[in-house]
C-alpha cells in the first residue's frame, strides 16, 4: 500500500513544496498528498492561502497601455540627450546634487574667485618676466639722468679719494702743500 501521508513541509524546512503547489507546478501525486495533509495542518493552509492571494493579484495585474507615439517620443528624447554637450552631461548630476546641499554656494563662489585670482597672478607674473631685449631698451630717460648724477658724484668723490693720490700733479702737489 502506498504511503499517502506527508510530513509537514513547514516543519521539515521544505517550504518549496508549498510554493510549487501554489504555482501549480507540483506533480499530481504530491499535490494530492499535500492537499490531504493541509486538511489537518492549519499552518500549511494559511501559507497556501497567502501565496494564492499573491498569485491571484499578479494574475489580475494589467500593464498600462502605451501611447501610440511612445517609440517616437523615446527616440526623440534619446537624440536630445545626445545633443547635450559632454560637459553639461557631466555637470548636470553634480548640479542636481549641489542643489540639495545648503552650503555649496559660498564654497563654489570662493573657488571661482580663487581661480580668477590665480589666473591674474599667473598672467601678471608672466608679464613681469624680463623678456630678452637689448640692454638699451631697459633704460629710460630717468635712468640716463640717474646714471649721469651717479657718475658726477663718483667723479667728485674720486678727486678726494686716497686712491687718487698718484693722479697727475699729485706727487708735486704733495711736496708743495706742506
Amino acid at each position, binding site marked *: 500500500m502506498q504511503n499517502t501521508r506527508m510530513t509537514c513541509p513547514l516543519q521539515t524546512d521544505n517550504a518549496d513544496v508549498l510554493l510549487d503547489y501554489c504555482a501549480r507546478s507540483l506533480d499530481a501525486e504530491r499535490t494530492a498528498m499535500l492537499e490531504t495533509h493541509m486538511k489537518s495542518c492549519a499552518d500549511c493552509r494559511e501559507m497556501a492561502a497567502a501565496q494564492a492571494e499573491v498569485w491571484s493579484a499578479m494574475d489580475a495585474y494589467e500593464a498600462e497601455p502605451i501611447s501610440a507615439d511612445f517609440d517616437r517620443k523615446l527616440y526623440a528624447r534619446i537624440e536630445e540627450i545626445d545633443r547635450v554637450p559632454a560637459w553639461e552631461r557631466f555637470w548636470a548630476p553634480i548640479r542636481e546634487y549641489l542643489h540639495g546641499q545648503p552650503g555649496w554656494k559660498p564654497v563654489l563662489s570662493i573657488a571661482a574667485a580663487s581661480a580668477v585670482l590665480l589666473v591674474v597672478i599667473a598672467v601678471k607674473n608672466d608679464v613681469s618676466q624680463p623678456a630678452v631685449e637689448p640692454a638699451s631698451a631697459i*633704460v629710460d630717460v630717468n635712468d640716463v*639722468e640717474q646714471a649721469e648724477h651717479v657718475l658726477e658724484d663718483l667723479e667728485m668723490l674720486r678727486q678726494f679719494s686716497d686712491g687718487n693720490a698718484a693722479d697727475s700733479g699729485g706727487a708735486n702737489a704733495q711736496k708743495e702743500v706742506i
Partner: protein
Amino acid sequence: MRAVSVIATTVFLSLAAFADPQPGMKRKAPPFMGASPEVVERFNRMTPSERREALQKLPPERRQMMERRLENWANTPPQERKRLQGSYARFQEMPPERQQEIRQLFRRFSETFEPERRPRAQHAVRMLRRADPEERKRIQNSRPYQNNFSEEERKLIEQMANDLPDPE
C-alpha cells in the same frame, strides 16, 4: 548675491594688482635720491651701439661728458672701484639737503681752482681728511699751505675736507 560680491571683490583686487603703483611707491627714485652705481653698471654692460642708442637723447655736450665718465669708471681698478662705491654709499646715507650742499661746495671748489692748481688743492683736502686733529693743525700752520692758498681758498679746502663722507 554673495557669490557675485566675492567674485566682484576678486576682480577688483586683480585690477588693483595691475594698476600703477602710487607715486610714492615707484621703484625708480628721482634724480639725486637713492640712485645706485648699479645704474652705471647697466650702461657698462651695454654694447657700444646700445650705449649710443641709450644716450642719443642727451645734448651732445652732456653725452660726451657721460661717455667720458663711463669710460673712466670702466677703467677704474676693482679695488679703487670698491673704495669709491663704499664712499658713495656713505654719501647716499647723508640727508639729500646735505648731499646737495656738498655738490654746491664742489662746484665752487672747481670754479675757484683753475685746472693747473686743482690737483694741489685736491691733495690738500685729502691730507686734511685723513689727518688727526693735531696733524691737521700742523698742516694748516705749515708755510707751503699758507703760501699756496689764500685765506678764502683755505676755508674752501677745509670745508670740503670736513663735509665729505668719511674716507673709509
